[in-house]
C-alpha cells in the first residue's frame, strides 16, 4: 500500500464527499450518521475493550503462527488447540484451550519496522495523513463509546513503571480522551485526600479551584480547560472507587491462576477494571524485543502472557463478559523468520499475527495464511487499517457511517482504503 506523508487534495475531496454523503444520509436516518447516537447504541450494549499490548514485538513463530521443523521454525513444537485444525506454539498451552473463544489473524503486513514509528502507527490505525495526529485505539473508543455508567475514566492503561495521565494518546480528539495510566497497576499518586483534611475543607478547596479555573479559562482553549476539569473530576470519581486498587481483596486462587508475575498482576487488575465498567482497558507488557537469545527469551516471556491471557479469557467467558467485550492481543510488528547470529529474531512487519476474541468476533476463525516457511503472507495481506475497521464493526460502530468532528473537519475513524475482515466477524 503506497503511503504519502502529505495529504492530497484527493484525500480532502474524499473526506468531504464522505461527509456530504453522511450528511445526506442523516436526513434519512439520523441514527446512521450521528456518532454520538451510534456510540449510545453501543453503550446500551455495554461494549468494552481489553487491549493487550506486548511492546517490542511478540514473535509470531513462537506464538500464533508456528512453522515447526522448517529452517526458520525455531526449536519449539506446534500444539493442537480446542479448535480442530488450529495449531499454535507449545509455549501457549493455556491459550490453546481457549481457542474456541478466539480468532487469529495470520496475514498482517504493516508498514513500519522501527518501534518509534510502528507503535504509533499501529495504535493510531495508520489513517491517511491529513496533517492531524489520530487518536490511539483506546482514545478512539473512549470518544465513541464514552464512559458508560461506571463513572470511571473510559480509558485506563495498566502498565509497568510509572503512571499518570497520558493525553498524547488522544491526538486531535483533545487531551480529555487520553489514558489514565496506572503505573504498575497502582492508583495514581496522591489520589486520596490527606487524612489531615476534612471533606468540607476539600469541597471548599474544589469550589475555589473551580472559580479560579473559570477565570483562567476565559482566555484559554476550550479543550485544554475541559481536560483540566476532566482530570480533577476523574480523580474525584476514583476517590469513590478506591476499592478497585485494594489488591488484598483478590482471591489467592485468582492470583495463582493469573500468575504472580507482572503481566499476571496487571491482567488481574484489568479484569477488575472491566468488571467495574471501564470502557477500554489496555494492559501493556514491556521487554518483548528479543533480538538476542530469542528462544530462551520467548520461552520465558510467552508462558507468562499465556497464563494471564488464558485466565482472563476464561473469566470473561464465565462471567458472560465476552459477549460485550472485545479482546485484542498484539504488538507493533512480528519478528524475523531469519535467526540472527545472537540467536535472536529482529523486526518483521511483513508477515505477523494477532489474536482477538469476544464481542462481534467469530469464534475459532483464522484469517489469512503465511507461506510454508512463514516468511511472507500467502493470502491477502492486511494492514492495521483493516483491523481498525474490523474492531469498530465488532463494537457496533460502522466506520463508513461514523466520522470524527475535528473542530469542523470531518475525519474518518479508520483508513478509507481498508475494510473489515468479514471472515473474522461474527
Amino acid at each position, binding site marked *: 500500500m503506497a503511503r504519502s506523508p502529505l495529504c492530497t487534495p484527493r484525500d480532502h475531496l474524499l473526506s468531504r464527499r464522505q461527509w456530504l454523503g453522511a450528511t445526506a444520509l442523516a436526513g434519512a436516518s439520523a441514527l446512521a450518521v450521528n456518532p454520538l447516537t451510534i456510540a449510545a447504541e453501543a453503550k446500551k450494549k455495554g461494549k468494552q475493550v481489553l487491549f493487550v499490548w506486548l511492546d517490542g514485538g511478540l514473535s509470531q513463530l513462537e506464538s500464533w503462527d508456528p512453522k515447526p521443523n522448517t529452517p526458520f521454525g525455531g*526449536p519449539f513444537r506446534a500444539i493442537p488447540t480446542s479448535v480442530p485444525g488450529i495449531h499454535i506454539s507449545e509455549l501457549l498451552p493455556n491459550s490453546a484451550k481457549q481457542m474456541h473463544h478466539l480468532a487469529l489473524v495470520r496475514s498482517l503486513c504493516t508498514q513500519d*519496522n*522501527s518501534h518509534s514509528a510502528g507503535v504509533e502507527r499501529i495504535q493510531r490505525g495508520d489513517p491517511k495523513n491529513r496533517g492531524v495526529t489520530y487518536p490511539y485505539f483506546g482514545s478512539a473508543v473512549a470518544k465513541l463509546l464514552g464512559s458508560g455508567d461506571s463513572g470511571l475514566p473510559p480509558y485506563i492503561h495498566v502498565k509497568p513503571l510509572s503512571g499518570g495521565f497520558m493525553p498524547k494518546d488522544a491526538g486531535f480528539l483533545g487531551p480529555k480522551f487520553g489514558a489514565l495510566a496506572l503505573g504498575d497497576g497502582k492508583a495514581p499518586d496522591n489520589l486520596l485526600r490527606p487524612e489531615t483534611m476534612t471533606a468540607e475543607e476539600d469541597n471548599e478547596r474544589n469550589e475555589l479551584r473551580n472559580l479560579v479555573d473559570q477565570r483562567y479559562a476565559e482566555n484559554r482553549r476550550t479543550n485544554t480547560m475541559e481536560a483540566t476539569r476532566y482530570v480533577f473530576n476523574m480523580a474525584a470519581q476514583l476517590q469513590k472507587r478506591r476499592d478497585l486498587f485494594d489488591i488484598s481483596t483478590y482471591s489467592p486462587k485468582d492470583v495463582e491462576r493469573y500468575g504472580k508475575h*507482572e503481566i499476571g498482576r496487571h491482567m488481574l487488575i484489568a479484569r477488575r477494571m472491566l468488571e467495574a465498567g471501564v470502557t477500554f482497558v489496555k494492559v501493556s507488557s514491556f*521487554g518483548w524485543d528479543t*533480538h538476542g537469545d530469542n528462544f530462551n527469551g520467548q520461552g520465558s*516471556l510467552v508462558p507468562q502472557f499465556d497464563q494471564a491471557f488464558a485466565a482472563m479469557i476464561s473469566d470473561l467467558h464465565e462471567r458472560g463478559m465476552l459477549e460485550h467485550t472485545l479482546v485484542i492481543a498484539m504488538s507493533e510488528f512480528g519478528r524475523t523468520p531469519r535467526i540472527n*547470529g545472537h540467536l535472536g529474531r529482529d523486526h518483521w512487519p511483513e508477515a505477523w499475527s494477532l489474536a482477538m476474541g469476544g464481542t462481534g468476533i467469530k469464534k475459532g476463525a483464522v484469517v489469512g495464511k503465511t507461506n510454508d516457511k512463514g516468511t511472507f503472507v500467502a493470502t491477502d495481506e492486511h494492514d492495521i487499517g483493516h483491523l481498525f475497521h474490523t474492531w469498530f464493526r465488532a463494537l457496533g460502530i460502522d466506520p463508513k457511517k461514523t466520522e470524527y468532528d475535528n473542530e469542523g473537519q470531518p475525519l474518518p475513524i479508520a483508513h478509507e482504503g481498508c475494510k473489515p475482515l468479514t471472515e473474522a466477524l461474527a
Partner: protein
Amino acid sequence: MPPTTPAPAKGTLKAAKPIPVSQQLCGIEYSPKGDMLVAGTFEGGIRRWKVTPAELTDLPPLAGHNAWVQCVAFDSKGERFFSADSWGRVNAWSADPVQTKPLWSVADAHSTWIHAMAIHPKAEFLATAGRDNIIRLTDPATGKEIRRWEAGDDVLAMTFHPSGLSLITGDLHGLIKEWDHSTGKLKRELNAKQMFLHDRLQDVGGVRCFAWNADASMLFAGGCQPKSGGFVQGFNLVIGFDWVSGQAKMNHKTTNEADGYVLDMHWNPDGFLMAVTSGQPGQGKLIFLKPGEAQPFQSYPVPNAHSLAIHPDGKRLFVSATNANSSGNGRQLGKDKEYPANTSPLHGFEFVG
C-alpha cells in the same frame, strides 16, 4: 566437553578459510578418533564430515530428529555418538559413516527442548536435561531409561565429573548443582548467580557450558553476566571453582556489554581454556584464557561463535559461527529477491610451528 582430553597444543594458531555450510548449526563435535566431525542443525538433521588433515568431506546427513539438534556427543571409544533435539528425542548412532539409521531412538525422552547432554566417562550413562526441568539417565547401549529426577530448573549445561562419581548441571538461574547420579540426590550447590538476570518479565542468562582442568581440580562455568533482556546484552563471564572447596577462584568478565555469552569451552593441557563467544550479531571470538590472568592471551574474532570442536591431536579445531550481517530488521532480501537465511560457516584453526 570432549570425552577425551586432546593433546597439548603448541605453536602459532593459523586460521584457515571458513568452510561454508548451507544451514545453521547447533553443537559440533569431533569423533575421538579424529576422523569425523558431526553437528546438529536447526532443521532436525545431523551433518557429518569425513576429516582428513587436508579437508572436510561431506558424508550423508542423518535424519530422525525434529527442529533443533542442540546436543551431539561421542562416547569415549568413538564407536557411537548421541544426539538430542528440542522436541525431546534422543538418538544413538553408529560412528560408521555408512550407517544412517539410528541404533536406537527415544522420542519422548523429555517433554520438550533438550538443552544439555553429557556422557559418563566410562559410558555407563548418558545424561540429558532441559526445559522440562528433568534430568534423565539413559543406558547408552539400549536407550532405556535408568533414572529420572527433578532438576528444579531449566538445565542449560551438564557434565560428569571426570571420576564419573557425580553429575554436574548448570541452570538458567545461575545455580551449579552436583548430583549423586546413583540416587538423583543433590550433593551441593555452587553459586554462579552472576550469570542470571530477571529483566522485566524475562529470565536472562544462565550457565551455558562447563570445562574441567586436567586434574579435575577446577570446574569452569561459562556464560554471560547479563545487562538486559530483549537484546540480551551482557559481558562474557567465566567463573572457575575450586572443586574441593566450591570456592570461586577465578572470575573472568569482559568489559563490552555486546560480548554476550561464552557458549563452549575446552581445557587445553598446556594450561589454558579455549572458549568461543557470541554476542550481538557479528560479535564473537575464539579466546585462549589462562586462569588467574585478567585478559585472554589470544583472541580471534569469529562472528557469533557457538561451538568449538577440538581434534584429539590437539592441533586442529573448528568453530561453528554465523555468517556476517546476520541481523536485519525489516525487509532485506537476497540478490534474487529470495528471503535470506543465515548459515553457520565452519572456521578451521591449526596450531603450526
